[in-house]
């Protein structure tokens, strides 16, 4: 155990604390600037089990702050690239990667497998989803976020404490790093503050940042803490999760031939599934390979997605929305029903 000796001699840790780290299960959502900063420290400390969720791929504009990646990483899944780095750093840490985005469909199942959730994402909408899924599964979540040189850190739902909705009740998007700009060292500092809170929760030390919002200005080197309390009026239920994140976004649209003036059709069934629809303007992009082939799509174009039951179409729509496709809907009809509608529509016979 000489690897961890320097931290074991701390009175707050000891052999017992090191055992807690070995047994800990931490889920990190997002491998951007925050994730890249906090992940190697969590792994180095001897945390035994780590999950990494990110459906995004490395871009050149990430490299100035996302320090787990190199030129060779461009185009590859961030979560997988991070795993390569971290496995090499400390093989004792058992790392599971999920190269998908967090959604209302997968969040609860994922959260159940871990003790602590770390929010290292860059979108407010996902933060509310993390919050609500953390509340429903009873997990604390460690929040960090940045606006230019100013970072916010807090721990929500810790021992039934206040949540993100108690701090910011309403969902409104605000500028991300891509829009506002960010320096790698600034986001790195905030990521490490999150890592420190993770350690405190695992070790059971006092003064976890629950009910407190820490603001750190990396330019003026000043910090400020604000107190907030639990809003008992806010109730998160499974039904709320379903309606808040699922139905609105992917409610299927009934087909009508006039829609084809504006929308292009995407068939996400596998290529060997029948019936194939005989219409000139259908893109065939099976869901099994969707993320690899979706780069031929145009973000400004409107798309209607269909499959057999609607399930895969809904998943494809979620993926497209994550990639900022503005106008994408699943179709209510199955491929078979659609075939009849298109065959019978005189407008479309050609």
């Amino acid at each position, binding site marked *: 155990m000489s690897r961890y000796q320097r931290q074991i001699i701390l009175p707050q840790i000891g052999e017992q604390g090191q055992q807690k780290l070995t047994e800990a299960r931490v889920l990190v959502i997002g491998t951007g600037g925050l994730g890249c900063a906090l992940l190697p420290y969590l792994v180095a400390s001897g945390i035994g089990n780590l999950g990494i969720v990110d459906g995004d791929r490395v871009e050149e504009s990430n490299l100035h702050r996302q320090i787990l990646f190199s030129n060779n990483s461009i185009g590859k899944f961030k979560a997988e690239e991070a795993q390569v780095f971290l496995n090499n750093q400390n093989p004792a840490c058992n790392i599971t990667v999920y190269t998908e985005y967090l959604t209302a469909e997968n969040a609860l199942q994922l959260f159940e497998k871990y003790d602590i959730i770390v929010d290292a994402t860059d979108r407010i909408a996902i933060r509310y989803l993390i919050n609500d899924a953390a509340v429903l599964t009873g997990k604390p979540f460690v929040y960090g976020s940045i606006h230019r040189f100013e970072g916010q850190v807090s721990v929500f739902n810790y021992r039934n404490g206040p949540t993100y909705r108690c701090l910011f009740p309403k969902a409104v998007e605000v500028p991300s790093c891509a829009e506002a700009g960010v320096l790698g060292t600034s986001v790195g500092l905030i990521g490490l503050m999150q890592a420190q809170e993770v350690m405190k929760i695992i070790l059971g030390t006092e003064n976890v940042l629950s009910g407190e919002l820490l603001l750190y200005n990396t330019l003026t080197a000043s910090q400020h803490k*604000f107190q*907030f309390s639990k809003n008992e009026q806010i109730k998160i239920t499974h039904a709320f999760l379903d309606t808040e994140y699922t139905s609105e976004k992917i409610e299927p649209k009934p087909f009508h031939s006039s829609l084809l003036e504006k929308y292009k059709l995407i068939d996400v069934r596998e290529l060997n599934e029948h019936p194939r629809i005989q219409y000139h303007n259908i893109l065939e992009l099976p869901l099994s390979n969707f993320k690899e082939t979706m780069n031929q799509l145009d973000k400004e174009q409107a798309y209607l997605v269909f499959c057999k039951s609607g399930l895969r179409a809904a998943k494809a729509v979620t993926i497209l929305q994550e990639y900022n496709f503005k106008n994408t809907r699943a179709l209510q009809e199955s491929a078979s029903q659609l075939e009849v509608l298109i065959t019978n529509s005189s407008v479309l016979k050609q």
Partner: protein
Amino acid sequence: MKITLKYFGQLVDVMGNHEETREIEVKNSNELLEQMKQNNPISHIPFQLAINDVLINQEESKKLNDGDVIALLPPYAGG
């Protein structure tokens, strides 16, 4: 009475500084917010209000006292 206003995030750009001390006529937090929104283009920015480092529920107006420090805290998204 005199209060100190502290701005964070996007509000720093809109208000032009991090902090200012003002002489105000209004008596409570709701009136202050009304007045600030009338005089400054901040309505599109979501934020919470803290009085002397404690966040308040904006549905309940709080009485302001001389020397209060009011912080305007927007959510951040970057990561």
